[in-house]
């Protein structure tokens, strides 16, 4: 699967079918600090992303 991280605009490739929660854990991201977007929809931590799909993981934490 192809993952785009925002706002870094970084591309990551992961193999296999994976659960969203496992993807976040693999990337060291905390649930609730990012939105996981597939196409035009948000997907919850319990859902699966197929190996041939593309998702965007967008940071939601702002500060300063």
């Amino acid at each position, binding site marked *: 699967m192809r993952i785009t991280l925002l706002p870094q605009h970084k591309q990551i490739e992961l193999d296999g079918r994976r659960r969203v929660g496992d993807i976040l854990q693999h990337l060291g991201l*905390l649930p609730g600090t990012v*939105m996981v977007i597939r196409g035009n929809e948000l997907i*919850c931590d319990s*859902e699966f992303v197929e190996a041939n799909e593309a998702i965007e993981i967008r940071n*939601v*934490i*702002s500060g*300063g």
Partner: protein
Amino acid sequence: MKCKRCQSKAEVHLRQHNSAFCRGCFVFFLQRQVQRAIEKQRMFTRDEEVLVAVSGGKDSLALWDILVELGFRTTGMHLALGIGAYSQASTEKTEAFARARGLRLIAVRLEEEGVAIPTVVAATHRPACAACGIIKRHYFDRLAFEHGFPVLATGHNLDDEAARLLGNVLHWQLHHLAKQHPVMESTHERFVRKVKPLFRISEYETAAYAFFRGIDYIVEECPNSVGATQLVYKDALNRLETVMSGTKLAFVQEFLRTGRVAFAGHSDGAPETCARCGAPAFGSRCAFCGLVHEVEAKRQRRATAGCANKSQ
């Protein structure tokens, strides 16, 4: 996972509420949460026109959208901070939002005022976020007062309030704890009431709302926020939230319900008036005029040094 209201496929899971929602039900849920907060905390009425501080980020644009959808009369206020491409994009997003919805927007460019954030930071050597906060608060208060608005709304969310509370507790900032509240009543003729209608709404929720509503907000972070203390507090709270859902909401809600009263005796009291600009001040000069004084002193030193070099 299914939507709590309509049983269709859920797009958001809110652990702190032990609920999941589909797109349509989440938008309804969030708008209703904000309406309840406005009513319960008596932030403003439908007779009052609300000045909404908008940065171009998800929280403030979501807030403006929610208030408009709830039928409140609003005007936006935007400060172009002068932080290069980041500020330019923020202003463009804000102006596009207002234009597309036919909303009134008051915009002030700090470069034209001589107090762009990079200029002030270079002249004063203060942390960027500290200088930015002082300047924003000054212009928020000033514009709200000068344009005759009774109330100013900002997009501070649950995560902002929890991080602020944690910082205040860690350093036992008693005066700050005494005044931390989603409604700050006017304590000076040039202060209007300030409210935070999103104080119970998490950053994830405002981001999801903006996404569902098709709000084009600036995703990039302010370049000055790298390493900001507030982000350290937010990270600590989000780690707690991961293992104990609802921690942030309980922290803020219980402080307001039971903890805050313990600090009531430490309030700053009513401010005095700044001798230079007439704004509220704790001392003879307000914090903004203190900054301006430092910037002007630096300019004068440069001009004097330039004259000395030319004459050599």
